[in-house]
């Protein structure tokens, strides 16, 4: 299935701007349309990634952005899959094109975020695991990131310095990225002097919450050819897989894993399955990649992703990092955008932001952070409550 292409991408810069999320989405959408050279009135489908923090307009993001851009009668959809919402919105739009129901779709995600920890929605909801984990455990998102980090230290001998080196690499990558919120060089010493939030993770190693917007114009390959779209990128795969039972790795926001005692089926661990499904659809493997954008919710989590997307075997991520393989100029640069470390997370926009970066890299438009000769890129991400997200683009 390679008859859908990315025709254009755009962003509103990440920050803590404190304005309405609709504004960020419209800025990103207009940038993507301009980038594609597509007239908005040609868009037949608007696919919005929802924000749950901005009231009703956020729940109906597709319609909200369509109205803000000007009603044209285009069909809309609104998707929520937590951090994976952008990939789900992209997949909905792609399916419309693959089904032959539309030739041009616009995918938009944007968020305005509160200060501090992401918290559950207000109100007493003792049936909601996301509410309960805060009430009964005091377990924030960094709690889970830190459990994985400590586990990595125990299993593979990873150190706090290794984690800080990931953060320092991403800081260097993001320095020249005009859309990044944090463009500051951090030494390993600076990072290790940052306050501990959830042992062993420190403040600057944990993803902040940001305002931002990202948009992607998807078209059929036919439309792109007919309109003479410059450098269309092939959408080789979109993976939105869920876990397989029994899920025996603890995942946010849950209290416990499934039990593996009664059901002995050997299932692929969820995080491994996300990219596997994408590789399978694209008919390629990790050895074919030029770059990867992975969800570094924490510095340590980026190392886990190296393994989950098959860049190396379990326990070898630190070696990859130290060999410089994942730095721009290395064998397989990871997070050339600077990643979440430099962006912070604008939940519904983030999976789309990853796609934007891959697109700029494959078109040779990434400026100082350009991965030379990039031809294939992957994104990987996960939304809580079992949402996988991985996109593969190629020239």
């Amino acid at each position, binding site marked *: 299935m390679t008859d859908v292409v990315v025709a254009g991408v755009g962003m509103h810069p990440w920050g803590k701007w404190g304005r309405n999320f609709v504004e960020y989405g419209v800025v990103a959408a207009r940038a993507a349309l301009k980038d594609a050279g597509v007239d908005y009135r040609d868009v037949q489908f608007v696919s919005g990634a929802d924000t749950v923090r901005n009231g009703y307009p956020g729940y109906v993001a597709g319609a909200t952005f369509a109205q803000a851009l000007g009603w044209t009668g285009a069909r809309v959809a609104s998707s929520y899959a937590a951090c994976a919402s952008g990939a789900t919105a992209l997949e909905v739009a792609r399916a419309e094109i693959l089904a032959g129901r539309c030739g041009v779709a616009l995918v938009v995600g944007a968020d305005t975020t509160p200060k*501090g*920890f992401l*918290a*559950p929605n*207000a109100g*007493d909801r*003792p049936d909601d*695991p996301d*509410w*309960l*984990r*805060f*009430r*009964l*455990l*005091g*377990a*924030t998102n*960094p*709690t889970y990131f*830190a*459990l*994985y*980090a*400590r*586990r990595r230290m*125990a299993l593979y001998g990873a150190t706090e310095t290794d984690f800080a080196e990931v953060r320092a690499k991403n800081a260097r990558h993001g320095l020249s990225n005009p859309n990044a919120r944090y463009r500051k060089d951090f030494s390993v010493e600076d990072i290790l002097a940052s*306050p*501990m*939030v*959830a*042992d*062993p*993770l420190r403040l600057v190693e944990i993803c902040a919450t940001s305002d931002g917007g990202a948009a992607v114009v998807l078209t059929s390959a036919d439309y792109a050819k007919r309109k003479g779209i410059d450098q269309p990128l092939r959408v080789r795969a979109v993976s939105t897989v869920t876990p397989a*039972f*029994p899920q*025996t*790795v*603890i995942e946010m926001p*849950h*209290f*416990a*894993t*499934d*039990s*593996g*005692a*009664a*059901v002995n*089926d050997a299932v692929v661990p969820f995080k491994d399955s996300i990219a596997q499904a994408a590789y399978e659809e694209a008919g390629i493997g990790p050895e074919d990649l030029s770059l990867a954008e992975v969800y570094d919710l924490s510095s340590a989590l980026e190392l886990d992703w190296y393994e989950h997307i098959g860049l190396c075997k379990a326990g070898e991520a630190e070696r990859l990092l130290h060999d410089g393989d994942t730095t721009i100029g290395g064998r397989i640069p990871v997070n050339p955008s600077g990643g979440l470390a430099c962006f912070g997370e604008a939940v519904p926009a983030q999976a789309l932001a990853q796609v934007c970066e891959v697109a700029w890299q494959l078109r040779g438009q990434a400026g100082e952070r350009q991965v030379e000769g990039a031809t294939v890129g992957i994104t990987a991400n996960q939304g809580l409550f079992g949402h996988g997200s991985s996109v593969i683009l190629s020239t």
Partner: protein
Amino acid sequence: MVTSDSARPRVPAVEGWFTTGDEPALLGNRCTTCSTVFFPKASFFCPNPACAGEEFEETKLSRRGRIWSYTDAQYQPPPPYVPRSDSYTPFAIAAVELADEQMVVLGQVADGFTVDDLEVGQRVELVIEDLFGDDDNDYLVYKWKPIGATQ
């Protein structure tokens, strides 16, 4: 300041998740069709996709396990977390592997223990301690308490 010897009634912070008393245990349930154990309890339908079971029997989980991983909360979590006093004291959280159930369960670590006292692989047991208090009650929750040296 809430203490365990306050005059307020001591009640579980959540109904039906654990027993109290000398040998407290987590309360899960077991699908009567495929025997898979769930915690928190499964309701209505068995989450095993190969099983059409809809009936469950309550079961106590193992009281002891080994630390799979651990961390702490150096900053006060946002609501609905309820702080125990005006001056916030960081607490530790452990993910504990139960051998019989082949399951990992998260819990706060018992009062008085910090991450410096914990190691992956360490043996812990379930205890019931205060979570927070209000004008009406002291609310109880299960926690994991270290019981021995690392193997």
